């Protein structure tokens, strides 16, 4: 079992004084897959990643990364690990080539091999024309390609990406994800944290974190199918009246508006949720079309993170 797993964590906990940033997280991350961490800011994504790469010591629990016990064996892991920090952390005042040269040297790549790989990465991530450009003058997308090139220069087995696309335009994000699948196909394991739903949906597996706890974990499609809530869509001309009509029902845990439609999440215990919503709307004489729909990942997220946007008032 652990043979096929890149990362195995049990009861992983990190406290900062009184604050529990990560609370008893269990993880089993398979090799050669993209594993996503989805969660709002402050949910413990970065702290978890930092514990995985040995930057932070766990307060409790154990974690094995590529078979190495962290943080004890952190030194041995380093040459097999690529890490992209949340903030761009290469050097603005060096050129693309100088940055790559430096990272290559730091990872102990001999001269010829280093130049060969820099050439490869430059081609792969379209950095060729930028090699002599100072990084400080480049766009978010270009910097991010450089960061990925630098993080993969030493051909790591595991790539940890901490919100890699937060400063990047949509097209660059798409390209970036294509690159990630390219890496996975070469057998690299990728752990990526994000707060974009569309990115989370692209992962092979997904863990949803909220307030330091792992609240859901699985294949995104399974998570959507098995959502612990009923998802009802309400289409109404007067959305304000519809919202008002739905307020105050304890079974209705969340209402989110998408244009003229309302996305309503109800307790899974409710016998016929569609009927219940319809009755409330009729009682308030709001004209609306009511329909049971499949859950989106956002619904999963809202349900898993404890309906913090509702209950409706």
């Amino acid at each position, binding site marked *: 079992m652990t043979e096929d797993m890149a990362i195995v964590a049990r009861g992983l906990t990190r406290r900062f004084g009184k604050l529990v940033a990560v609370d008893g997280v269990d993880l089993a991350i398979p090799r050669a897959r993209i594993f996503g961490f989805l969660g709002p800011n402050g949910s413990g994504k970065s702290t978890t990643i930092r514990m995985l790469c040995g930057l932070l*010591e766990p307060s409790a629990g154990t974690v094995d990364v590529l078979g190495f016990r962290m943080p004890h064996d952190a030194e041995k892991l380093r040459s097999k690990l690529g890490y992209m920090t949340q903030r761009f952390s290469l*050097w603005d005042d060096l050129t693309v080539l100088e940055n790559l040269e430096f990272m290559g040297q730091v990872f102990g790549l001999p001269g010829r091999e280093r130049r060969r790989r820099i050439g490869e990465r430059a081609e792969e991530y379209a950095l060729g024309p930028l090699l002599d450009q100072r990084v400080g003058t480049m766009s978010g997308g270009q910097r991010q390609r450089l960061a990925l090139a630098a993080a993969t220069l030493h051909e790591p087995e595991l790539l940890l990406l901490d919100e890699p696309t937060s400063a990047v335009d949509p097209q660059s994000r798409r390209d970036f994800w294509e690159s990630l699948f390219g890496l996975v196909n070469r057998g690299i394991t990728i752990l990526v944290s994000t707060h974009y739903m569309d990115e989370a949906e692209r992962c092979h597996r997904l863990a949803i974190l909220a307030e330091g706890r792992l609240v859901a974990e699985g294949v995104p499609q399974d998570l959507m199918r098995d959502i612990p809530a009923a998802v009802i869509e309400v289409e109404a001309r007067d959305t304000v009246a519809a919202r008002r009509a739905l307020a105050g029902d304890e079974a209705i845990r969340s209402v989110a508006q998408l244009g003229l439609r309302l996305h309503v999440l109800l307790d899974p215990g409710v016998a016929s949720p569609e009927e219940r919503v319809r009755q409330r709307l009729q009682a308030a004489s709001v004209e609306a079309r009511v329909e049971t729909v499949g859950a989106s990942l956002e619904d999963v997220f809202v349900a898993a993170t404890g309906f913090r946007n509702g209950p409706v008032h």
Partner: protein
Amino acid sequence: MLQRIFAVMIKEVRQLARDRVTFGMIIGIPLMEILLFGYAINFDVRGLRAAVVDEAGTSLSRALVGDLQATGVIVLEPPSTSVADLRRRINSGKLSVGIVIPADFERRSLGSDRPAVQLIVDGSEPMIDGIARSLASTPLPSRAGLQRPPGRFFEVYTEFNPERRTAVQVVPALIGVILNMTMVIFTAAAIVRERERGNLELLITTPIRSGELMAGKLLPYVFIGLLQATLVLVVGMWIFDVPLNGSLAQFYLAAALFIASTLTLGLLISTIAATQLQAFQMAFMTMLPSILMSGFVFPFDGMPKPAQWFAQLLPLTHFVDMVRGVVLRGAPLVDLKVQVAKLLVFFVVTLLIATRRFHKSLD
């Protein structure tokens, strides 16, 4: 290991070369400081207005006046007819120095116990007094057939040359002040900047060790420090006529030890400061007492005992001692072993604390 240290060094030098302002400061600070300090503390005032009362009127007395004027320290105004007139002119501020050559000058100069010449000095300006004293000690050539050593002609007798020594003493010590300022700030800022920008977070996850990172970051500054020391020494010798009486190798040895000490101090500051601004503030906090208490500005022996004890903690104190010894007194470092030992202790202790803290600050 060497490859990684080398990689960090190259990176540092490249970044430094790109940072025009910092790069300019490496050259600019020493130049500015030496010119400011060199000239400001230069008591070598020239062109004091003086007048002569020559009651002797012999060829010898005229030759003496000619020699005094040739020093350039005084510029002769028309002579006075009497000592009373001379004093009046000094009182009214028209003259700074009066030279009285008595009628029996020839006889006095041949062997009297009484001084041959009297200098009357405007005592209201303390500096002029010192200059007049230096004038009196100016060795005059005996071309006029003087048979006594010229120093004894004057009532004001001193073998001390305050004007020269002050300027000369400032410049070697200034090397220490400049190194103290630039080394501490540059290293502290260079390391704190990487933490501020998140570079360190990335570096920690690479195979580089904290010792390699430290060495790679500090080594370029050793060379920069030696470059600055050379610059100040050369400018000092060239513009301010500072002699190099000791050995150049020993000068560099002393400088290298001091640079190492200031670098570890910078490293220590970098482990405490969270931002570059804090690093600057802390660096300046160590600067002021260093400048004031190291013996650079005020005589060390003139300070109260507790201040002297405190000054022992400052690396500059020991370096000022060493560099004046080597450059001016021509002393070999062996004779300065106490200072060398104290500086070594500072270096080792600071390095140990800084390395421990540096390692921790990465966690």
